[in-house]
């Protein structure tokens, strides 16, 4: 099985996510980009599990999913409070803390 296409795909997804975090303004979209990065990592983990012939990577992928779900709970709660206070989820608006 050629492994390179899978890793290249996961690297692409990871890069798209990373660039998304850097250029998007909406906190929810940034957060979705982070999730994309985590899922790209899952793809890499599962591919390497196949290559290495053990299950460690697949189990790790499950853990990453669970952690991502927990992160969604905390993250959405924080973004929601910000949105309700400021009527905006743009990360550029939240700029009281600087220098």
């Amino acid at each position: 099985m050629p492994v390179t296409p899978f890793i290249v795909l996961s690297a692409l997804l990871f890069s798209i996510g990373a660039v998304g975090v850097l250029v998007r303004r909406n906190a929810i979209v940034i957060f979705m980009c982070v999730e994309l990065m985590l899922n790209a990592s899952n793809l890499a983990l599962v591919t390497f599990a196949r290559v290495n012939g053990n299950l460690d990577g697949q189990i790790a992928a499950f853990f990453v999913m669970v952690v991502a779900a927990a992160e969604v709970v905390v993250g959405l709660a924080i973004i929601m409070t910000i949105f309700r206070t400021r009527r905006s989820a743009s990360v550029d608006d939240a700029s009281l803390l600087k220098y």
Partner: protein
Amino acid sequence: MTTFNAPHLEYATLLPLLIVLGGAVVGVLVEAFVPRERRYVVQSALAGVVVLAAGVDTAVVTRNLGLFHDKPGKVVAEGAIAVDGPTLFIWGLVLALSFLGVLMFAERKLESGVLSFAGQAAALPGTEAERQASTRGLEHTEVFPLLLFAVSGMMLFPAANDLLTLFVALEVLSLPLYLLCGLARRRRLLSQEAAMKYFLLGAFSSAFFVYGIALVYGYAGSMGFAQIANAVAGRTDGHVLLLGGMGLMAVGLLFKVSAAPFHAWTPDVYQGAPTAVTGFMAAGTKVAAFGALLRLFYVAFGGARWDWEPLFWAIAILTMVVGSVLALAQTDMKRLLAYSSIAHAGFMLTGFLGARSLGVVKAGDISAVQAILFYLLTYGFMTMAAFAIVTVVRDAGGEATGMARWAGLGKESPLLAGVFAFLLLAMAGIPLTSGFTGKWAVFAAAVSAGAWPVVLVAVLLSAVTAFFYVRVIVVMFFSEPVGEGPSVAVPSVLTMLVIAVGTAVTLVLGVVPGPVLDRLGDVAQFIR
């Protein structure tokens, strides 16, 4: 049919960790079943007792494992957790700092009878709902279980002996802290903004960390540190995977220790978060993350030292420069302490460069692990005490964190200003304070490993840091107060205890560091 082999868990050795996790779960139940008016007493007592019990048990485990009799410790939980000298030291330190954290969290007198956390986090700032929550005296006692969850993550992080446990610990440590940052009672917009920044950047960095884990796993074929170390020592191919994985994992860990260029969140979060949380987070996270950084890079990637050392040279220098130079321009006390904590991370990274092969270290030499653990001990206590002092200097709007408001504090309260001046001198590394011994230890370790250019930069920048610490002292003692001047609120015995303990440890470790440093030398050895 295949038989099921139950995993073997060494409950006795893992007990300190289990006590804290169990205490956190009980705390959640208390929130559900205990009437509102009794929750504060129950929750704060529970958190305090749990942390103390775990601390006592850490001492028992240390004794049972015979660490002071040349035993290396034990790898437990099917290879997932390593309980050795550094682990147990960090457990003890994190638990001691968490106990001070519980005391600061439980302080009620400064906000006239309520916790310094938001009465009802869901009520919008400046609305009728918030006023009602405040007149009814509501408070979120959930902060205590959240603290305990964060503590359990901080304990697991430096003990993790495989990549998966390391990742889970990172998240268990971070998620409660994101929430705690957003729960300030006053200046809630700042607090919420701090929580969002911390969360988004933290999630971003942990995504890098996970991708690094995937690459290292692809390289080594296993998650265990021992197997990774074997692969690093034995394999000659796949070097790109290893380099990429190490780099990405370093991003995640360096973010947590707030090393430049991954420090951008630190000043904002330290300033916006409730000061009790800032103190706990500044001390605890740094201790835990440095423990994890040391174990990962010394144990798992130790064989690839020549690959990662140049990177850490650059990061150590950059971190010290950023921390000490930007601190010069700060006018807010919490931001100043944040930049000072970045500079401290840089000094500790200098010690991190003191890694040497086992045979090279002579008896009586200070090893890098020993030096960094000692530095963490000194840093943790002085940071905790400094932030506790920030909570008691107040004006009508709550804490007066602007440095101009601190002018004339020396006349208002000579004792408090004197103690704060002493802590600042300790941070600057003046002799007879613990900060001096800590700096001396990390510099000695780095020099003996040949990293003298970094140490040279570090010594020069120590002088720069001394400048802004002394500037604060000048403001406190020799400036005329603006307007009414600062007022020092009298806190309850809880906060006083934090200040007293932090200052006492700073003084004692400065005057007689020898016994602690020597004993650390006995235990500062990672099990492989």
